[in-house]
């Protein structure tokens, strides 16, 4: 029980940090390639603590993104939900993948996420068709091994 409490705390801290990262302005060039850190965390926690970070958690995270940035409530919420659902479905396999394979899976999940956001954008108005829009998929996937390294060593240190 104590352990589940401590990972709950870690989840809260990392989520808040990722939310702040999401709205922190970066220099013009880097800004468009800003990785979706919160989504990566949702994937990570769905794999690492699936019974604490469930679908409701993912949905809340997406909704939080909608509140702080989005033009529409529910857009990122549903995208996060779908990604978390797929992660939960794949979790037993994904956890055993070697890191490069896992990164590749995350890459596809991020691409799917961007596509859903893009799609809903297109429904509600003129969507941005700039290719730069897809760069977060690449930066996010590249960030994945680093994130796993940091969070894993943190959870081992806490154990």
């Amino acid at each position: 029980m104590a352990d589940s409490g401590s990972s709950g705390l870690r989840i809260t801290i990392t989520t808040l940090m990722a939310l702040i990262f999401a709205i922190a302005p970066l220099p013009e060039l880097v800004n468009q390639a800003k990785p979706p850190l919160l989504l990566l965390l949702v994937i990570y926690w769905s794999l690492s603590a699936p019974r604490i970070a469930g679908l409701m958690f993912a949905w809340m995270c997406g909704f939080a993104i909608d509140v702080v940035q989005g033009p529409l409530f529910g857009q990122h919420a549903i995208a996060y939900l779908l990604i978390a659902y797929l992660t939960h479905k794949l979790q037993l396999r994904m956890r055993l993948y070697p890191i490069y394979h896992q990164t590749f899976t995350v890459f596809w999940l991020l691409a799917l996420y961007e596509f859903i956001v893009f799609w809903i954008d297109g429904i509600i108005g003129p969507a941005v068709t700039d290719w730069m829009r897809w760069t977060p998929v690449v930066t996010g996937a590249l960030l994945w091994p680093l994130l796993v390294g940091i969070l894993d060593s943190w959870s081992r240190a806490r154990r």
Partner: protein
Amino acid sequence: MVTLSSDSRPIIGRGPPLGARFFVLAVASIALMVFDHRGGYMDVTRSWLHTAVNPLYAVVQLPGQLWDWMTGGFSDRGRLRTENTQLSEELRAARVKLLRFDALTEENRRLRAIRNASQGMGERTLIAEIMRVDLDPYRHRVRINKGSQDGVFKGQPVLDAFGIVGQVTRVDAIGAEVILISDDEHATPVQVNRNGIRSIAVGSGDINRLTLPFLTIESDVKPDDLLVSSGLDGIFPAGYPVAMITKVERDPSATFAVVEARPLAQLDRSREVLLLWVDPATLPVQPATPPTLAPAAIPSVESAASATTAPTTATPATTAPTTPPPP
């Protein structure tokens, strides 16, 4: 390889299956999107939530504020002095201009009195600061630090020292969101200052470019023409500088010329903007107005526009039924 944190809760009997939960939440998000997009039922909720997440915005602001404070504290005497000299020079120049302006205002008032027209410009302004918050890199929206507590309202014009910046689209208690004139969902009714030709300047999604898609190839416009607001939308008061024409391309086989303009307001540089309250009497009396926003604008923005129909609007019926009357 992700390590699994041990979890002592039982595997069996932990709520409904994954698929069912997914389904319920997905339906909930779709319902949210429909209510938010179609009806604008979420405005109150949104304003509450924005007020609630304001501490988060404050945290994001901190490093920038700290930097400003430090550079302010350590900037040397010499630099402050040069800045001071420069500012007083600018002030002197502005005063001289203002003297002339006063005379003109007086003359204007006299002429209006002769014609029994409305009394001069009754305007009030308030300085707001643009928060260092990144809303969406592809949408030209910014957040300012003045909200409904200061009387900010939806559809309020926002200016800076050089021209029109945009209009307020969402308001909560302590902040507001402003759509810039360069956003591709925004359009500004303008007038060529030289000869009074009216048109609409549509944002392009590029911060340095507006397009004027509704000028025919015969229209008398040329590069370096100043575009001022025409005031026909009932949102932006007439006569404020908007943009400078940069490019006019006339293809003899086309009906419309390709006209581009550069916004005069420093959309990506100014940190301080002016919120403007205009005395409604000075606005023209509800003419057949072009819309302030492009046809495909989202309803929350669209309801800020005053008019619903215009020759340029392809789908006038897209306006939300709950459109409030223009202020």
